[in-house]
């Protein structure tokens, strides 16, 4: 990102230096403001989760916790079994769905780059078309609930979103950039397509695979819409859907604590905010490690044929 290499030799070095300083100041001010605006809500929610119910009701949300306490977290993690159960569901669908989806998408993307595969254009169109046209919600809903009988199953949270057309195209772009001579040489040496894929293509494409894999993990972790349509059993609620449920249903948390056999007066607002923190917690923890993959991996420019 450094612009040092492009610094020009201007005729009047002084004025350039000055305008550069003013320019840099303005640019940094703008970007700093924008960055803070992006971070601010996270701080507010975090603060609220450590505040007391009364302080929020009376004084409103703020940037620092008021009457710091961890009651909300105790309530969610100790008094209620549901939060941990939902965590388990989310972790399960993410750790099964993302790798499986990545494998399926990578395989088809690789096949589409093989020059001797005569149906590669047809397959590309088959995938591309799903990005442009969809049957809509009702046919999917009837298919899944009536014909496939997938309502209230773990499978419905995983299987329908295994293949995402756009990500297949991104992977294809990656595989296409691999040195062709290498793949040809493997073929001549008697390596089959499967072996070439797993032993040569996969190790050489880690940035691309990591990017799509992370996208996929994010999609599974953040999915609440599938549950909204197809999940009614609380034992199968993913964490995001649990979070959605308590937006609309103030009493849902009470219900949960009663199920666990404990009757406590819950800190309602802080408990909700603590739920938000728990729902984004794993993302925030992984963020410093995965963000650079995203940054490196996103190259949409050559998406086109």
């Amino acid at each position: 990102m450094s612009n040092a290499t492009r610094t020009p030799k201007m005729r009047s070095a002084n004025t350039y230096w000055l305008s550069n300083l003013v320019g840099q100041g303005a640019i940094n001010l703008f970007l700093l403001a924008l960055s803070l605006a992006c971070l601010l809500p996270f701080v507010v929610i975090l603060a609220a989760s450590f505040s007391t119910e009364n302080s929020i009701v009376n004084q409103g949300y703020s940037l620092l916790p008021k009457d710091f306490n961890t009651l909300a977290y105790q309530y969610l993690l100790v008094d209620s079994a549901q939060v941990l159960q939902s965590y388990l569901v989310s972790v399960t669908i993410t750790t099964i769905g993302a790798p499986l989806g990545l494998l399926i998408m990578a395989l088809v993307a690789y096949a589409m780059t093989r020059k001797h595969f005569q149906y590669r254009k047809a397959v590309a169109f088959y995938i591309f078309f799903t990005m442009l046209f969809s049957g809509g919600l009702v046919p999917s809903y009837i298919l899944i609930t009536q014909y496939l009988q997938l309502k209230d199953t773990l499978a419905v949270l995983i299987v329908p979103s295994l293949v995402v057309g756009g990500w297949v195209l991104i992977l294809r772009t990656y595989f296409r950039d691999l040195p062709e001579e290498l793949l040809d040489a493997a073929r001549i040496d008697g390596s089959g397509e499967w072996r070439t894929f797993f032993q040569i293509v996969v190790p050489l494409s880690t940035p691309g695979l990591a990017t799509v894999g992370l996208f996929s993990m994010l999609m599974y972790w953040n999915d609440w819409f599938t549950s909204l349509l197809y999940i009614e059993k609380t034992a199968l609620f993913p964490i995001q859907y649990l979070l959605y449920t308590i937006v609309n249903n103030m009493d849902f948390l009470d219900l949960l604590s009663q199920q666990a056999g404990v009757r406590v007066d819950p800190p309602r607002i802080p408990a909700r905010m603590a739920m938000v923190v728990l729902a984004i917690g794993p993302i925030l923890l992984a963020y410093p490690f995965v963000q650079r993959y995203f940054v490196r991996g996103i190259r949409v420019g050559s998406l086109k044929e």
Partner: protein
Amino acid sequence: MATAVNTSTVRPSKATDRLQRHPRLQRWIRNNGAPLMMCLPAILLLFVFAYLPMFGVIIAFKEYRFDAGILGSEWIGLTNFKFLFGTDIAWRITRNTLLLNFLFIITGTVMNILVALLMNEVQGTLRARFYQSAMFLPYFISWVVVGYFVYAFLNVDQGILNQFLARFGIDAIAWYRKPDYWPTILVITSLWKGVGYGSLLYLAIMLGISPEYYEAAKIDGATKIQQILYITLPHLIPVVIILTMFSIAGIFRSDFGLFFNVTRNQPTLYPTTDVIDTFVYRALRQMNDLGMSAAAGVYQSVVGFVLVLVANWIVRRIDPDRALF
């Protein structure tokens, strides 16, 4: 391929013997066998979860009965559509869908390019990395969480915004009851969530532009602004076109979570925030009007598809190389 190589060394069985007498078939298998197998899982999954529902659009032309199934239900022609377009809801959701999405596309594109241009000028790797990390973060959270964030800001009694306004003596505003404010609120929310990712796409292109162009421009005495106008922006056009096309394709299956969670699905806000997607969902799950929901869904898909074709046609007229298909 391994199998093809092996056949010559292993004693030929009846099957391989037959294969060898058909060299064309043999070559076909060698070229397409493994790739086809590799495609199979994706093809099957998309067939079930993307293509079967496409055939399911016929539901919109039927009086669907759960006991009779899709094929057994009776055809009723355009009755569902007549009901849909007989209400003023049809106009409202169409207008909101188009208007809000065009706002998102235009403000998003401008904002993302602007931020990318500025990021490209930042001197100091550490600072640039901080900005990028901060702005990218909202992209990673779900719309449910965003809904909570927005609520913490706009909540009438405890919200940050009303607290802030109170300092200037402005009375608390019940944001969730005032539909007029919501196009702006939704645009800001959408920008907030998308700017990190969106600007990154453009920044990636900018970093790929050969420095030689800029060197040459500087020798010719071009100002910074001129460099941006005549070198940077033209390089971005292909990406702008591709992203805009995909956004247009996505218009009619808009970001459901944005309209559903951020508004907390408040009926008072429907006049400006109800889009086709939220209506399809409501008709199906809350009004239990399957026919109307299916009709709205078909309307959504068909118009979306036509929009993409038109957008692509326009791009093709201007510059055939940049058309999507």
